[in-house]
C-alpha cells in the first residue's frame, strides 16, 4: 500500500533536482571550504553561490546570510547571540510570542535562567499576536522581539511587516522564524523590517543539515559556537557543502516555480479541509481560515484523541502529525492551541495535516475517505458523542 504523506510540515522529501545538484559535492568536489587549494576554492564557491541565491530570494545582501545546521540552531543563535552581545548595554529584555516553536521557547527559558527577562505575547483565538500588548511591553531595556512567521502547528501567518515596523520605531531588533513560511509567503527582509530571519532547507525539499540565519548588517550578535572562524567567525564548523548546495538549489526551484506551486497546493488543501469538515460532524479548523500557510490544515475531532487518530490513520496508510501530548506529564496538550484558548477536548483531539509538492488530488480524495472511515470506527469507543 502506498502511503499518503500528509506531514510536509515535519519534513519534506528531497526534490530529485536538488539531490542531483548535491551529489558531486560528496565525492568529486568534497574539499573543505577553508582550504586554500583549488579544490577548496571550488567548494567555497559553491557555498557562496548558494548564499547569493538565498539572499536574493528574500531581498537580503549576500553577506547577510549565515549558514547553520538547522532552524533550531539558527533560532538558538538569534536569541542567545543577540541577548549576550547587548547585555552590557543594559539590554536584558526579550519578547517572544506564546506560540513559538520549542527551540525559541526553550532558548528563551534558558536565557531567563541566565538572568534575562522574558515576556510572552498573548495570541487571539486565530493565533494572531496581540499587537497592543507588544507596544506596551517594549521598554528601553528590550533588545529583541521574536515572533514566528507562519506557525508550524496551526499555520497562522503573522503580520510580520507591522511587528517589524513597531520594533524598528522603538529601536528593538526583530527576529522571525520563517522555517514554515519560506517559499509559501513572499519574504522581503527590507520591506518587512526584519533584522534576523531563520529558514531551513528540509522544509523546502532540500536536505536536512542546512539552514540559514539572515542577520541584517549592523546587528550586534555573538557566536554561540566557537572555533575555526567559519561564516565570518559567527558560526565555526566545517561547512556542510552538499547540504548548503542543496538548500541553494531548493530555493532556486522555489524562485522559479513557487508561485504556481502554492496555488496548486492551496487548492488541494482546501479540498482536504472541505472534505473533512463537511463529512465529519463536530470537526473544526484551527487557526485563521484565510491568513494561513497554503499547505497547512489543523483540524480538531472533538470525540477522538489525537494520538489514537494518528495511529489508526497510519494503519490505513495516511501519515499525519499531532500537536497533542497525552503522554506528557504536564497538564497541557499543544501549547499553541492552549494559548489560543482552545478547550482541552479540542486541543487533545487535534491533528495537523500538511501537504506539498508531490501531493496529488487523488491522494487527497482517498485521504478524506480514510478519515471518514477511521473517525467512524474510533467514535464507537468514545464516551463523547459529537
Amino acid at each position: 500500500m502506498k502511503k499518503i504523506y500528509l506531514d510536509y510540515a515535519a519534513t519534506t522529501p528531497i526534490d530529485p533536482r536538488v539531490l542531483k545538484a548535491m551529489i558531486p559535492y560528496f565525492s568529486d568536489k568534497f574539499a573543505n571550504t577553508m582550504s586554500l587549494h583549488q579544490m577548496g576554492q571550488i567548494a567555497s564557491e559553491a557555498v557562496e553561490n548558494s548564499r547569493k541565491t538565498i539572499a536574493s530570494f528574500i531581498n537580503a545582501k549576500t553577506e547577510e546570510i549565515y549558514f547553520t545546521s538547522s532552524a533550531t540552531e539558527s533560532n538558538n543563535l538569534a536569541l542567545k547571540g543577540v541577548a549576550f552581545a547587548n547585555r552590557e548595554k543594559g539590554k536584558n529584555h526579550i519578547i517572544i510570542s506564546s506560540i513559538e516553536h520549542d527551540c525559541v521557547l526553550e532558548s528563551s527559558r534558558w536565557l531567563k535562567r541566565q538572568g534575562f527577562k522574558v515576556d510572552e505575547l498573548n495570541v487571539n483565538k486565530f493565533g494572531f499576536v496581540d499587537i497592543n500588548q507588544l507596544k506596551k511591553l517594549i521598554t528601553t531595556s528590550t533588545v529583541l522581539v521574536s515572533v514566528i512567521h507562519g506557525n508550524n502547528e496551526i499555520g497562522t501567518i503573522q503580520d510580520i511587516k507591522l511587528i517589524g515596523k513597531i520594533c524598528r520605531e522603538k529601536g528593538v531588533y526583530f527576529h522571525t522564524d520563517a522555517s514554515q513560511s519560506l517559499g509559501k509567503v513572499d519574504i522581503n527582509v527590507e520591506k518587512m523590517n526584519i533584522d534576523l530571519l531563520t529558514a531551513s532547507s528540509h522544509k523546502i525539499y532540500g536536505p536536512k543539515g542546512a539552514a540559514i540565519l539572515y542577520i541584517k548588517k549592523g546587528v550586534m550578535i555573538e557566536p554561540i559556537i566557537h572555533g575555526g572562524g567559519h561564516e565570518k567567525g559567527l558560526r565555526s564548523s566545517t561547512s556542510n557543502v552538499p547540504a548548503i548546495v542543496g538548500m541553494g538549489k531548493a530555493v532556486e526551484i522555489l524562485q522559479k516555480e513557487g508561485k504556481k506551486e502554492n496555488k496548486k497546493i492551496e487548492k488541494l488543501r482546501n479540498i482536504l479541509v472541505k472534505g473533512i469538515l463537511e463529512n465529519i460532524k463536530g470537526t473544526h479548523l484551527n487557526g485563521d481560515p484565510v491568513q494561513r500557510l497554503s499547505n497547512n490544515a489543523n483540524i480538531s475531532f472533538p470525540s477522538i484523541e489525537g494520538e489514537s487518530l494518528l495511529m489508526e490513520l497510519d494503519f490505513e496508510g495516511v501519515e499525519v502529525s499531532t500537536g497533542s501530548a497525552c503522554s506528557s506529564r504536564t497538564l497541557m496538550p499543544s501549547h499553541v492551541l492552549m494559548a489560543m484558548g482552545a478547550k482541552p477536548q479540542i486541543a487533545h483531539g487535534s491533528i495537523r495535516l500538511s501537504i506539498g509538492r508531490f501531493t496529488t488530488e487523488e491522494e487527497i480524495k482517498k485521504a478524506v475517505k480514510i478519515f471518514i472511515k477511521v473517525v467512524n470506527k474510533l467514535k464507537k469507543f468514545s464516551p463523547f458523542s459529537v
Partner: protein
Amino acid sequence: MYSKRTLQHFRSPHNYGEIKNADGVGEAGNIVCGDVMSLYLKMKKIGNKEPIIDQVKFKTYGCAAAIATSSAITDLVKGKTIEEALKISKNDIIEFLEGLPPIKIHCSILAIDALDEAIYQYLTDQKKPILTDLQVKHNRIKKGREQIEERYKKWMTKK
C-alpha cells in the same frame, strides 16, 4: 514503541460500548489530561456462590494505550468475583498487553481506577461493606480529579 498485543487491542478492542442497567459504572481520568474512561459492570449470581462479573464494557477517550488498556481490563475481569477483580493490578494489565511504553503506564492506572470506581458504586448501591483499601482508592481518585480541575482553572486564569 507499542507491543504487538497493545496494537491489536487498540485496533480491535474487546467489549467496547455501554451496558444499560449496569450494576456498577466507574469513571476515571479527566479531559484536561486527555484520558476519560467509563467502565460498566453487570453482575450475575449463580446459586449460592459469590456473584461474578458477567458482562463488562467500556467507553474511552484517549490515546492508543488508553484504549488498549481499557480493552485489556475487560478481558481480565470477565467471570471474576469482586474480590478477585480487586486484586488485578496495573502490572497484570501491562503483562497482559506484553508491555507498555514507560510514558504510557498511567493508562493502565486509568483502567484500574475505572474498575475500582465501578466496583465501589456497585458495592455502595448493594449496601455491601466497602473495604478500607477500596475506600482509600476511591478518595484518592476523587481528590485527584478535584486537583486537576483546580490546576486547570488556575492555569486558565493565569493567562
